[in-house]
């Protein structure tokens, strides 16, 4: 006599399928981690002996084959900071408009489509746009300003999309409750919507930063220099940058010691990893404070 709890052939088949897919997807995931691990291990092994305080604090010397990366490090910070100053206010403002004010009509849909397409434009095209618009038309010359604005235009979609998504994650009932009290849209945004979407917005910002740090093409023609014996003093100066420096010592300069490019690459990845970890930690912290 079979009770209703007896395992049937169908149950066993379902369980086998379940196990199969679990293992399959698990293996795919592990496979995807391998390249990252290989890259990191290679960098760590090959850059052995490069890192010292001098590496971070000195100028490159002897035709870039010796010395440190100090001006490139500082230059990258300049580029990222100025790019953020431009793209965050613009991106957040655009996202607020699209999420909170714009009606759902053909124009809004075209704008949304344009933003997605902007994210798909190759960075070399952004670079050429930057040359045409910022270097030549606005006459900023090759400068931090031109390079950062190019980076800002390129990363705007990241900020806009991340901000829009996090604004839309705030329940509509909060807005309606606020409107019903006689609040204007802006009062509602300022007091209720923004404070509750700030963690998502910051995540977008930090994603943008880590992308900006690594980009080479957009800054190559617009403001980053091969070598400079001094630090930039204003946004109208040119600057060295980590990403371009890596490109230069890897491909353009003869007799660079083996470890040096690996050390620069590891530093670059290190910056991105630190920023991403910071973003995740901060997001976790803000989620802990989430209020609904």
């Amino acid at each position, binding site marked *: 006599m079979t009770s209703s709890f007896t395992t049937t052939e169908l149950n066993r088949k379902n369980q086998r399928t379940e196990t199969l897919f679990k293992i399959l997807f698990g293996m795919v995931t592990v496979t995807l981690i391998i390249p990252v691990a290989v890259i990191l291990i290679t960098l760590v092994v090959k850059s052995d002996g490069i890192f010292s305080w001098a590496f971070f604090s000195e100028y490159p010397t002897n035709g870039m084959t010796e010395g440190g990366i100090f001006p490139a490090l500082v230059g990258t910070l300049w580029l990222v900071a100025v790019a953020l100053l431009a793209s965050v206010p613009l991106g957040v403002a655009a996202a607020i408009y699209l999420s909170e004010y714009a*009606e759902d009509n053909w124009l809004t849909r075209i704008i949304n489509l344009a933003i997605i397409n902007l994210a798909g434009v190759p960075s070399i095209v952004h670079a050429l746009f930057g040359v045409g618009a910022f270097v030549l038309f606005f006459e900023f010359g090759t400068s931090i300003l031109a390079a950062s604005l190019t980076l800002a235009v390129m990363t705007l979609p990241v900020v806009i999309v991340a901000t829009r998504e996090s604004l839309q994650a705030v329940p509509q*009932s909060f807005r309606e409750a*606020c409107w*019903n*009290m*006689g*609040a204007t849209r802006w009062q509602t945004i300022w*007091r209720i919507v923004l404070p509750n979407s700030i963690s998502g917005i910051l995540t977008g910002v930090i994603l943008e930063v880590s992308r900006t740090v690594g980009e080479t093409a957009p800054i190559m023609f617009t403001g980053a220099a091969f070598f400079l014996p001094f630090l930039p003093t204003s946004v109208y100066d040119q600057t060295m940058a980590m990403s371009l420096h890596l490109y230069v010592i890897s491909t353009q300069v003869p007799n660079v010691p083996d470890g040096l490019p690996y050390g620069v690459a590891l530093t670059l990845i290190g910056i991105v990893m630190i920023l991403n970890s910071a973003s995740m930690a901060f997001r976790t912290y803000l989620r802990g404070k989430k209020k609904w």
Partner: protein
Amino acid sequence: MVKRRVKKLEVHDLTIRYGDKVALHAASFDVYENEIFGIIGPAGSGKTSFLRALNRMNEMTPGMVVTGSIKFDGVDVNDWRDVYALRSRIGVVFPLPVGLPLSIYENVALAPRLSGIKSKAELDEIVERCLTRAALFDEVKDRLNSLGSLLSGGQQQRLTIARALSQAPQILLLDEFSIAVDPVTTMRIEDVLKELKKEVTIILVTNLVAQARRLATRTAFFLQGELVEVGDTEDLFKRKVEDNRTTEYLEGRFG
């Protein structure tokens, strides 16, 4: 005891559509000052749509089209140049409590702040008064700075009532407020409402026929977007009604 009855709201030929769907069809009725006006009817009968139209929330709702007129103190709501001033005179309590993601204090202080009140003493006074009137102050007075959303469902609903009162509204709209509230709390809130009607006009949308009977001075019965009947609540329940659909609903034969 017939008092002189002042018309607070005059609804004339009000039709509300969402796209092709008619939510309310050609409804006309009046709401008098300082009464509790009950609106009963099954789901989808246009009750909530009426509340939204009154508050001009149709402007925030894509596809919602309102024709006909609602006069508030004799002025068509659409002729109020400052829609925000209109809305601040109308307090709304939703079916499910919407505790804004703010502290208890800030939930109640928000509307006064929006209207420009900055003095801490004045805000303190408003917060305490509104929470007291919503029968919540004693329970939360020691933790005004903790989050409103941490309160129990019944407490949150009283918090939203306190918040609605903080606007110093002339009309209080309650949209099935007791759905998320236990019976004991419901009775406490009902007592609060009986007190409040001395000061404000209350429109009580409810699924509970008995609740309308307990509270409402007059009651309107909506059915599938049609205003079937409106009259003194007692008349409705004493079968002095013209339409037998009302009687059937009240006796629980459908709905």
